């Protein structure tokens, strides 16, 4: 049924930390592995060992370069590289659901997960057209639309230990850049993270109200701007070229247990 539920009990989703993602593609392949073996048809690959290998993936990692504008303090700022994983954002106003002519696409009432019921899908592709995020891919072998299921077959799976009841991309992410939880609950860890770090929506102007949020990269390359604060840290211990060993002697004296014993009658620099 392609009418969107007016409200979902929970808003399960992902929070993706762009400040932490190193672009390793672990989530991409873990997702491919789990979803090839599990929910619905396998994610197929065409021309797998040939000239134009191309397969169905539910999660892909883009990368973007940001060139900060020059400022008086940073006349030649370095460009930044941001790795950007992208999968279904499980939108609250999911256009992919409402455009579906067969009811194959739907948004679950209990947790807000957007799914495709593959046996109802005619593979018309309209849902993919309506998705601004490129979250849906038509599987060429099966002829049905594939998308992120938020591992609906993991997160409630009683055959998995409780700790593993998270999407496979979250479980595998080495850097811990992916967080999973209920974004409808303001007290959840993910909601707190979004609040603390200024989590953002992608293409908010589309009105899709994505559940998944992205944590923006923290400001980068700011160390030099702190130099004035830090400068006294590097004040030389001595202004005279030969003064270093003199400073050393005094500094060593101040260390606990290091002070030279005057009764020995010898200075440390003395000769025997």
């Amino acid at each position, binding site marked *: 049924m392609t009418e969107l539920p007016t409200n979902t009990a929970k808003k399960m989703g992902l929070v993706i930390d762009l400040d932490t993602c190193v672009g390793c593609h672990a989530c991409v392949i873990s997702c491919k592995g789990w979803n090839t073996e599990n929910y619905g048809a396998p994610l197929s690959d065409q021309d797998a060992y040939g000239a134009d290998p191309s397969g169905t993936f539910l999660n892909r990692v883009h990368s973007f370069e940001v060139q900060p504008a020059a400022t008086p303090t940073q006349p030649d700022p370095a460009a930044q590289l941001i790795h950007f994983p992208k999968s279904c954002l499980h939108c609250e106003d999911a256009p992919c659901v409402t455009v579906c002519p067969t009811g194959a696409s739907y948004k679950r009432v209990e947790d807000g997960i957007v799914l495709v019921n593959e046996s109802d899908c005619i593979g018309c592709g309209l849902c993919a057209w309506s998705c601004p995020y490129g979250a849906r891919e038509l599987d060429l072998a099966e002829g049905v639309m594939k998308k992120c299921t938020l591992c609906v077959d993991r997160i409630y799976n009683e055959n998995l230990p409780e700790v593993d009841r998270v999407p496979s991309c979250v479980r*595998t992410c080495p850097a811990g850049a992916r967080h999973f939880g209920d974004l409808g609950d303001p007290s959840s860890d993910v909601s707190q993270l979004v609040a603390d770090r200024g989590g953002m929506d992608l293409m908010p102007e589309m009105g899709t109200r994505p559940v998944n949020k992205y944590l923006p990269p923290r400001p980068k390359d700011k160390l030099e701007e702190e130099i004035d604060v830090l400068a006294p*840290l590097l004040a030389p211990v001595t202004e005279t070229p030969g003064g270093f060993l003199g400073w050393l002697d005094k500094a060593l004296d101040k260390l606990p247990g290091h002070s030279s014993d005057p009764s020995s009658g010898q200075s440390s620099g003395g000769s025997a």
Partner: protein
Amino acid sequence: MTFQQPRVETSPKVSDEIRQTTCYMCACRCGINVHMKTNEDGKKEVAYIEGNRDHPVNKGVLCAKGSAGIMQVNAPSRLKAPLKRVGPRGSGEFEEISWDEALEIAAGWLEPIRKDDPSKLAFFTGRDQSQSFTGFWAQNFGTCNYAAHGGFCSVNMATAGIYTMGGAFWEFGQPDWDHTKLFMLFGVAEDHDSNPIKMGLGKIKARGARVIGVNPIRSGYNAVADDWVGITPGTDGLFILALVHELMKAGKIDLDYLSRYTNAPVLVNQDPNSQDKGLFLRDDHGTPLVINRKTGKLAPFDMKGVRPDLGGSFKMGDVTHVSVFQLMAERYLKDEYAPEAVAERCGIPAKRIRAIAAELARVAFDEAFELDQEWTDFRGEKHDKMIGRPVAMHAMRGVSAHANGFQTCRALHVLQILLGTVEAPGGFRFKPPYPKPVEAHPAPHCRVTPNKPLDGPHLGFVHGPEHLALKSDGSPARIDKAFTWENPMSSHGLMHMVISNAHAGDPYKIDTLFMYMANMSWNSSMNTGGVIEMLTDKDESGDYKIPRIIYSDAYSSEMVAYADLILPDTTYLERHDCISMLDRPICEADGAADAIRWPVIEPDRDVRGFQTVLVQLANKMKLPGFTAEDGSAKWQDYADYIVNHERKPGIGPLAGFRGPDGDKSGRGEPNPEQLDKYIKNGGFFVEHIPAEASYFKPWNRAYQDWAVDLGLYDSPQPYLFQLYVEPMRKFQLAAEGHGDRQPPDHLRQRIKDTMDPLPIWYETDQQGNAGFTVNALTQRPMAMYHSWGTQNAWLRQLHGRNPLYLPTKLMRQHNLADGDWARVSSPHGEITVPVMEMAALNGNTVWTWNAIGKRKGTWGLQEDAPEATKGFLLNHLIHELMPPKGDGLRWANSDPITGQAAWFDLKVKIEKAGAPEDFTESQPILEPIKSPVGTGPKDLTWKVGK
């Protein structure tokens, strides 16, 4: 209308069985859960691979390579049976033979060599992780010509670490991710220790701690760095010494730490005429001496209650001795190391260098903290707290693969040590079996006797000219010329020189080249085209110059076509392996750990694990070490060896579950149930380090005792960090004319210049390189490792071709746009490749992903695969020798200290070659090889459970 939605099965059965083993998609050695499902034929098949949560390395996470293991196990490029070459070398024409015949042929070649001159066998392994076993095999065969690929890869980093601080990065040590507040990561090529580093970065990022990346390329870890230092390649050492300059000048160094735990206070002979000049003042037992600040008198550094004086000096007769620290102050306080003096060469503004130095000082000292943990040091002194210095440093291969890489890595360790951050909470921590002083490692052995084992382990650490692997006439004992005056401290051997030396018959000719997992005719060699010629070159009589080549690999790699006999290996899920404490174990800073692989599936082809084949070959030849006194074979296969071999009584390849009841750790009799115990335990064993022993390990009595108990060493081995590396000075002394082992004259100056016992920096810009001004680098993508990604149907979609990345400035300068073709040349060669712009890149550096490019006909790919058409190797531009200098000699393109291949010193010239449509393939184009395995299927719809 009520809302009706389909019922989804939210609790499907995940698998029929989970088998836990160890990943081998890279050198990380993560624990994996292999989910097995029963197929229609009732056979269990691999359905899904995930990380093992209990495993000490990856704690459940897994990278792209690991999760794609299933596509590695079903890869169409897997070799199927032993092969005998029937066409000319390089043609790829083989016939399949039986294992009996294969072993017969191999033994038929090897036995006469052993009887006559075992050094005629050169046995080198590539991405092997069973070096303690392969080395044992080679030693018992009797050849001195054995090594793995470290000389090509990162010997500078490993050796500099061990000589300086008794441990190194990667498998040997790790930042204290839980406490560090400032993490500084040096060097390009973010592959080794990949999951632990990613996990650590995640941890410190979650805390909001600062990450500084020093790397010409802002990819991967550097992309998430808070501050990025886009340094000019090869100048890391100079940058580091400028930091040292600033920190010393400001007195922001840990004097207490330096005086207690390093050789900074050790006295050094300053007599300009003495043959001991620059050597330590020692007592009669050979213990280095310091001035005791309490008494002002000489004292052995390890004396109970001694307070070593950093500024101490001592006059003995006319000879002055000053402390190492004084020598350091004299050197590093000089203006030549001031930020302003180095800024231009490093490509980093002086202000930035100073800001970083200030931040290091601030965090190390102003944010110092204490752990409420008592401990006792090796001098018997009790400490009621552990002082933390939360600055952690780590480095990737980039700093290492330069001709000044050894000294650069030394400089980095000296910087860490000056801040007191090594083995301090919040700093850098060793993983067992490290820390381990350099003296506790063997020295290299090279004495070959027909029909007898070698006189000791091949590889090790030289302490002076006396340990060089030279024959009595002074010529190199080893085919790779490791441990010679050209590269005295080449602790990992020089795999990259084997083929060219064997081809040239310099220092001597060999008969059989035996290699394992080393793609020498492709991405594992510099000068790929040249190596291919050497492998196929014939002498006047029409015989191959390298007469016989045996090669073992699991896959149809480029090297297969160049061997005469192929011994097909299994995939990593079909074999036994041990990731041993005798080798490069999987330890973490908090525990000693080792692991196994075991056949979670049986091979469906006529292949055998390479190590088992070595056991079978050894048994066939009745090699000593493999043969019991009654002449019977000690072990039937590798699993048998893993369980029953004892290196010393009670110490074997695996430390866990020893003793008849399997309850002994480290030391204990072999346990026939050992492998089962490992399997039940998830494929690994871990023994945690007690809290009292967890920091300051080189000097911590509790740690030393724990390590002895576990069998890591036989007696406590406390030692000082070697800011000043005395063995290097010994080589300088020889070059100055002292001692009876003397270097050839043409090397004297270089040895004097480069083997400075205190870190220096020197320019690596190669002579003969005029006009080639752009640095060219390679690194592997995180989702791939070596060549293996290419055959993997999932991974090759991520990286099916590799552009040459150019910084914006060079793109504009050469009027290039994404997809255009550029001609890239070096003094050695030329390639034409597609380009792509990257803004976050050092302005005078280009780079590409390594080992994406493939030879047509290999890896089970179709010949029009993008890897074979668009993909390319930078290796064509790099030579194992430097361009001629005009002195009649060809100098090796390597570090003069360790022999590490200096492939990051590559400088190139860039020219626009054409628009996207002007070329269809990267140049050069090599002839296709006939595939011994055919090509893979067109489409894949992989699903085991229906």
